[in-house]
């Protein structure tokens, strides 16, 4: 019977009958304060949509850096400090993936809206979300004091890390091992004013780095930003440095702290054509090789990655306990022992997790290999530019470059007299 007692550790039997009061004692009732009313979630979506619309209007019609800056303060205050960084579009990526793979999790409408709205806007206007609405971007945008120019080759290479992070975040969300993006949100400690030391340090690190390398999280980490980059490439309208025409004055050349201004191209020498064609063929082959390599590596590391899954960790501890290597059971093992779950069911679950990680690891590896291969191919295809232009993928729609363009001054002056403006 001792076994039964210990098995019932917290799930106690009801040992004592309900009291029979003789006085007119009234039992208090248990209060259950409700969560935040659902209508506020809709308000959040409304604010997001309004902020996105306003950002697009400010950047395309008003061409106002000040307006964007003011809006970014508002977003920082509202989505950051007021809403404590939850819900945010960056993190909603995890919710979307989770809902795709876990049928018991129905995606809340707010999460869906936070995920989709910025992408929709990016398809029309470019990354206006990054410029003025994202609280993570806004907090970094205010410490861009001494931006160093990061050479394009370094920037492109470092962005591979973000792709890897995206693959890992999607993998972890898909197998139910957690939402990495939310877990390692660097500024969440500021927003919540909580005392999580590692996260405070991470946030300060990113802000400190951000003084010299503008918006490091957005450029080299943010997985959601990668989605917006692709949408930005396709976007219907693009942010233009000049309101009307580029006069090739080169004054905006160093205006962008994010290195997103691209100079006009010179014609590529005709003599290079055959070599380039051969290279393209080679790189297309390499793309396949990289995808294969990525899949293989993904499979190789899947067991290591799976160690981050709670079920696998539980199984590891239970195995230690079974082997007599754990004399005092951890809370996890204790919880397992009183839960009445069988060892077999745990092994089955663990095996299932490993299997999911194996397939997920392969898929994630192939994906990262694909990205690396496509990057190489991209570098071998030449786009023709005649003007100084904002890089469609990299432009964060902050509006800093406007002030550098002499045409902007003329346009601003002309606006008072009512002459035309351009989209």
């Amino acid at each position, binding site marked *: 019977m001792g076994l039964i007692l210990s098995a*019932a*550790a*917290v*799930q*106690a*039997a*009801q*040992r*004592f009958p*309900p*009291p029979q*009061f*003789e*006085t007119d*004692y009234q*039992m*208090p*009732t*248990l209060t*259950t*304060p*409700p*969560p*935040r009313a*659902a209508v506020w*979630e809709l308000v959040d979506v409304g604010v997001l949509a309004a902020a996105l619309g306003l950002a697009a209007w400010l950047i395309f019609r008003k061409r106002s850096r000040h307006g964007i800056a003011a809006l970014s303060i508002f977003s920082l205050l509202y989505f950051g400090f007021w809403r*404590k960084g*939850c*819900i945010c579009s960056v*993190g*909603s990526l*995890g919710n979307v993936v989770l809902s795709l793979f876990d049928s018991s999790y*129905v*995606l*809340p*409408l*707010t999460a*869906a809206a936070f995920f*989709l709205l910025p*992408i*929709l806007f990016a*398809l029309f206007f470019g990354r206006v979300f990054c410029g003025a609405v994202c609280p993570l971007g806004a907090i970094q945008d205010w410490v861009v004091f001494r931006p160093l120019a990061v050479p394009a080759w370094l920037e492109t290479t470092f962005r591979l890390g973000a792709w890897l992070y995206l693959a890992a975040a999607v993998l972890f969300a898909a197998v139910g091992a*957690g939402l990495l993006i*939310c*877990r390692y949100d660097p500024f*969440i400690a500021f927003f*919540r004013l*909580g*005392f*999580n030391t590692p996260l405070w340090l991470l946030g300060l690190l990113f802000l400190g780095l951000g003084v010299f390398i503008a918006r490091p999280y957005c450029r080299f980490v943010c997985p959601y930003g990668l989605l917006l980059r692709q*949408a930005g490439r396709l*976007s*219907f309208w693009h942010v233009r440095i000049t309101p009307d025409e580029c006069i090739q004055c080169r004054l905006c050349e160093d205006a962008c702290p994010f290195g997103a201004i691209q100079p006009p191209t010179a014609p590529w020498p005709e003599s290079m*054509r055959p070599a380039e064609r051969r290279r393209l063929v080679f790189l297309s082959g390499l793309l396949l090789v990289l995808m294969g390599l990525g899949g293989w590596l993904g499979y190789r590391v899947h067991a290591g990655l799976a160690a981050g899954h*709670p079920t696998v960790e539980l199984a590891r501890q239970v195995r230690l306990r079974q082997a007599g290597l754990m004399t005092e059971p951890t*809370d*996890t093992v*204790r*919880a397992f022992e009183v*839960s009445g779950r069988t060892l077999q069911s745990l092994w089955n679950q663990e095996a299932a997790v490993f299997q999911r990680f194996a397939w997920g690891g392969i898929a994630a590896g192939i994906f990262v290999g694909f990205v690396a291969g496509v990057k190489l191919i991209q570098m071998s295809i030449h786009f023709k530019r005649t003007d100084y232009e904002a890089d469609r993928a990299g432009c964060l729609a902050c509006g800093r470059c406007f002030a550098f363009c002499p045409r902007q001054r003329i346009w601003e002056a002309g606006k008072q007299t009512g002459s035309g403006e351009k989209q």
Partner: protein
Amino acid sequence: MNPPPSELLSRRRFLKDGLWTVSLAAAGAAVAALASRSRAKEWVWQIDPYKCIGCGRCATHCVLSESAVKCVHAFEMCGYCDLCTGYFSPDPKALQTGAEHQLCPTGAIRRRFIEEPYFEFTIDESRCIGCGKCVVGCAAFGNGSLFLQIRHDRCLNCNECAIGRVCPSEAIVRVPASSPYLLKVRNP
């Protein structure tokens, strides 16, 4: 051999427009898919009291410095014992309210005499840190009427619950916001 630049440009243009349309269609499809599942609900975190083992991590791992988890008391389950093992430290010298006899590290449980032989125990939530010591005490020798719950007037409803990540019994689960508590009830 090489297509004229204008043709190249228009081909690229065509490709881009195609991709744009596809992306927009995908986004539209996503919106439609969501609209069709319009029963989509909001989720909040809650502790399943029947899984909880009272390990005490709720007190230390919440992103809030004073945890959103508090002990609650299902009065209908309570035995109103004089010797409450959720209130007193094991083998108390005397059944008195002094700090030296109490299990609760913050003295958040109030003990009040009702009538012979019954005492009422209420939780002062402003003091409770959600450590679960009383929960374990009550379950070990009592009716298990004290248990931990996430209080939704405090919970920030993080996308990934920081306590849930470290909960040894995976007792922190998503529940619909329409029924945000998992309360214990007396088995008559």
